[in-house]
């Protein structure tokens, strides 16, 4: 649990972060989003004291972060950044084992931990353990960066635009993997990005920042449906908000049970998003789709009317 209470940061005359209060619950993935210079990165870096806050209080599990030695505090949190910051003179395995080694774990435990992390992140030990960072692709290097951040099994993970420098396909893959990882590990993650699609895809809680203040925070769907003001609305995509919302809802939530005489038609997975369903309808000139489950069995149907129709939650 991370709690910021009336936190500000001033650099000389300029105020980078202005009296913000935030609560990040355990197991929650919070995304700080905003234009560059809005204070989102500063906010993140105040949590592990790479930047000292000027005013207010920051608590980790109820304790003030100033009560810890800086190094002790940081070793309790994972930290992943856009440039990965892998040590170029260390092998992949040694890079991942950094924090456990700082914490003086026994060598056998470090080895076991590194191996399980590498397996978890799809980096086979035999192939990657002895590679140097320069031999990795961007996506692999970022996976190593995430593995290193997770190495000492911290409750908190701070991620500063970790996927910002990757190509769109790799980025999407890693976003997906992060969600799956999070479903299993239930860390408290603070994630900074300026990419709204990424923010919407990942966030349990979306925090929109502007000029050092929080404009609005809450569940991504809540923000999409009721943006607090024009700034939030335009940042969330303006006219595209309908599509962004559709990307957060799944076919399974909107489908109808199969009728008495099922009609043949294009098939779509129940896990697909409404946005994908709409795209398929446009592409195939189809007004209805057959929804299938993981085994490929038809379990329902989705009509265009139903897709765009009454929102069941309202």
């Amino acid at each position, binding site marked *: 649990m991370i709690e910021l209470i009336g936190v500000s940061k001033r650099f000389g005359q300029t105020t980078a972060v202005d009296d913000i209060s935030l609560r990040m619950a355990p197991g929650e993935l919070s995304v700080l989003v905003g234009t560059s210079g809005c204070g989102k990165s500063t906010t993140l870096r105040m949590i*592990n004291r*790479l930047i000292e806050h000027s005013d207010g209080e920051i608590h980790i599990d109820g304790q003030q972060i100033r009560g810890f030695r*800086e*190094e*002790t*505090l*940081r*070793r309790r949190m994972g*930290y992943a*950044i*856009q*440039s*990965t*910051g*892998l*040590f*170029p*003179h260390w092998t992949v395995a040694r890079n991942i084992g*950094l*924090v456990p080694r*700082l914490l003086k774990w026994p060598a056998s435990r470090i080895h076991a931990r590194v191996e399980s992390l590498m397996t978890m992140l799809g980096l086979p030990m035999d192939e990657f353990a002895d590679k140097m960072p320069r031999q990795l692709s961007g996506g692999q290097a970022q996976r190593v*960066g995430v593995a*290193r951040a997770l190495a000492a099994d911290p409750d908190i993970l*701070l991620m500063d635009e970790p996927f910002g420098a990757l190509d769109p396909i790799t980025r999407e893959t890693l976003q997906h993997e992060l969600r799956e990882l999070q479903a299993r590990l239930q860390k408290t993650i603070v994630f900074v990005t300026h990419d709204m699609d990424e923010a919407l895809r990942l966030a349990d809680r979306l925090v929109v920042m502007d000029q050092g203040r929080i404009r609005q925070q809450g569940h991504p769907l809540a923000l999409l449906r009721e943006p607090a003001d024009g700034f939030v609305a335009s940042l969330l995509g303006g006219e595209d908000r309908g599509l962004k919302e559709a990307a957060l809802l799944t076919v399974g939530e909107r489908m109808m049970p199969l009728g008495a005489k099922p009609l043949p038609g294009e098939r779509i997975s129940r896990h697909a998003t409404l946005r994908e369903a709409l795209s398929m309808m446009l592409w195939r000139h189809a007004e209805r789709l057959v929804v299938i489950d993981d085994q490929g069995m038809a379990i329902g149907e989705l009509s265009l009317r139903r897709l765009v129709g009454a929102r069941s939650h309202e």
Partner: protein
Amino acid sequence: MSEATGILRGGARRRWLAPVLWAALLLGACLGMESLQGLFRLVEPDSRRVVYARADFLVLLGRHVFVVAVASLAAVALGVGAAVAVTRRAGRDFLPLVAQLASIGQTFPPVAVLALAVPVLGFGTLPIIVALLLYGLLPIVRNTLAGLEGIDPGVREAARGMGMTGGQLLRQVELPLAAPVILAGIRTSVTINIATAAIGATVGASNLGDPIISGIVNGNTAYVLQGALLIGLLALTVDSLFARLQPTLT
């Protein structure tokens, strides 16, 4: 497997070839200068002696190496130390000052340092060590600064963010990454100082500069050539040693 180690050993042996060869030539020249008498006679047909004999060449070589080694070790300690200090957060303010001082150290001719140092430190080995130390600082300071500043800021950020202390960051990350550049600076500094040390002979620090100074004073070109030859061979030996050392660190 045994074949692979065999190749490795062969490779290692080949890399040591240059330093060993230069060192052998240097020692050979020190011990066998007398046998080159005929050659030097061609340069100096009228002199009574053509091979410098006031002191044993090996002794002069030993003193030369000693002076350069002491001055270089001090310059490395001082230069690397100062460059590290001014790249820490507490010492940032002194960075321009130290960079400038090191440059001034090199623009100041060693002869002038000697002239100033002798009245204070007296004749002998000490003033030349001071002169070499000042003269050799710049390449070391400059390269250490360049090596440290050249490190990807993301690496430093990650290291701090992971909870490394300042000392761990310096020892495990910054110095190893900057090592090749620092070593290149030390190499330049030592090589320059091997040549510069010869002027120590003018203030009574006996070394391989002795035959050169004596040759100039007595108008004996053969002596000058002998001193220059040995200093040149020493510089090549040490330089090839550094060349051997460098790739193992990158």
